[in-house]
């Protein structure tokens, strides 16, 4: 694998994470439990889509002139490189916010390192995104704490959300040859090196939320290298890519 190939994969991983999670969050539009949450979720989705434009825009450049839209709307499931966690359905508001929190925690740490990337373009995207994500993390942490330490029902729902999502956490820190290549080039950190900081952050917030981290260390995998996705991704793409697929070549 050349460094360019690895770089492309890295960019797809970043951009597909924000694309798919942004899509999931946008599904809430008009259906949130409180008006303020409707606004906040739309805002999060908006930021994530904006970041997608930057990551996939750069990926398309590196890949020889495709646009971010080409990459978002014309690849099939096996070409996606996002972690599996962002694919799982929203389910209730609790699972949505727990997923957001776990992702934000990883995302904020990752972006913090990427600001110092040896690749200026990456550093620039990270600088912009990390401000947005710091705010996402603040919000999702507050919500997780508020609901975890709320009523008995809200506590149980948040614990169920955490139990469901925890097996999807490990994949964010799995390292492979692509990560090694990126680390060697100083472009991106090795994900495994972020785990300690993540654990400290997540343990603190979840303790405030009176929630218990599951003991199992099992981790689903396959999304980052495309070898295995969830069945949910294909269904998501049918919606997301519909117009581009049905009316190829049109300009919108």
């Amino acid at each position: 694998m050349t460094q360019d190939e690895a770089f492309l994969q890295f960019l797809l991983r970043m951009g597909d994470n924000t694309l798919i999670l942004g899509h999931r969050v946008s599904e809430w539009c008009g259906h949130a439990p409180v008006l303020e949450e409707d606004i906040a979720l739309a805002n999060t989705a908006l930021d994530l889509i904006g970041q997608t434009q930057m990551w996939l825009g750069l990926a398309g450049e590196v890949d020889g002139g495709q646009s971010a839209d080409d990459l978002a709307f014309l690849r099939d499931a096996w070409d996606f490189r996002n972690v599996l966690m962002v694919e799982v359905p929203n389910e209730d508001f609790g699972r949505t916010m727990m997923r957001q929190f776990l992702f934000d925690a990883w995302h904020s740490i990752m972006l913090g390192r990427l600001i110092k990337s040896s690749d200026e373009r990456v550093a620039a995207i990270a600088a912009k995104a990390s401000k947005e994500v710091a705010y996402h993390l603040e919000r999702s942490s507050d919500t997780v704490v508020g609901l975890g330490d709320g009523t008995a029902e809200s506590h149980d729902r948040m614990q169920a959300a955490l139990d469901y999502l925890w097996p999807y956490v490990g994949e964010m820190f799995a390292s492979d040859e692509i990560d090694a290549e990126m680390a060697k080039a100083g472009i991106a950190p090795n994900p495994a090196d972020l785990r300690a900081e993540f654990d400290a952050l997540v343990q603190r917030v979840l303790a405030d939320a009176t929630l218990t981290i599951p003991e199992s260390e099992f981790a689903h995998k396959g999304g980052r290298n495309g070898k295995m996705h969830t069945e949910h991704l294909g269904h998501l793409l049918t919606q997301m890519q519909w117009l581009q697929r049905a009316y190829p070549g049109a300009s919108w």
Partner: protein
Amino acid sequence: PEKLAEFQAKIDADIKIEPKDWMPQGYRKTLIRQIGQHAHSEIVGQLPEGNWITRAPTLERKAILLAKVQDEAGHGLYLYGAAETLGVSRDELTEMLLDGRMKYSSIFNYPTLNWADIGAVGWLVDGAAIMNQVPLQRTSYGPYSRAMIRICKEESFHQRQGYDAIRKMAEGTPEQKKMAQDALNRFWYPSLMMFGPSDKDSVHSAQSMAWKIKINTNDELRQKFVDQTVPQAEYLGLTVPDPDLKWNEERGHYDFSEPDWSEFFDVIKGNGPCNTDRLTARNKAWDDGQWVRDGLLAHAKKKRARHLAAE
């Protein structure tokens, strides 16, 4: 009656009425109904546009649409806030929406069926809404007037975006152009209905106009909307679905066909294409979210208690 005269004098002198000022019950009631309906319209109005967020054809269009729907929710917030200054809570208003005691704009009971509808909603529906709202920036009730000023600024931005989106379709492939025409066909008359029935048939209008809660007549605004929109449609190369539409040199206005008012009253009665689904969606959001609101409230109380205990 002395107070009433004083009140009317203020209005006539264009002095804003503020929450703590004395006001007649009818004024308060009418305002609550009007502002509440407007707030509900912003909330329910998220649904037809939200219907296409997951299918937006480009990242840029998706971002624009998300931002717009987010703004609408924000408008809902301003307006519920304005209504609250009249002594009714957001939750009370919401419950009246959910059980059907209060209405929202009937336009949102029409479905969005193709992507050009998103452009049409911005161009026509926001266009008609602005036509209604611009004069309301001068409405007599202070908080309402100030909310309308903020809202109008954003709405006219939305309208331009909507026009841009449908222009892109009208100038696109034959299928895209067909979508744009189809959208105009379906949204034209419902947009005209947004101004309400002719003032001749409207009971409350005179009093509302005296109170400057309503500034123009429905028919004035409708004419203004038609006059503004027809040239835009022509520019887009789209055909307004009204064979009798034509410029009347003498009046200096377009002559146009009235919408089918029996359809209007049908939709208000609950028989629009989407009434049931819209209210079901809002009720579901509210019911499913009960545990969230309860949880956050419980946490806030605990936190306050802990804070007090620590003092």
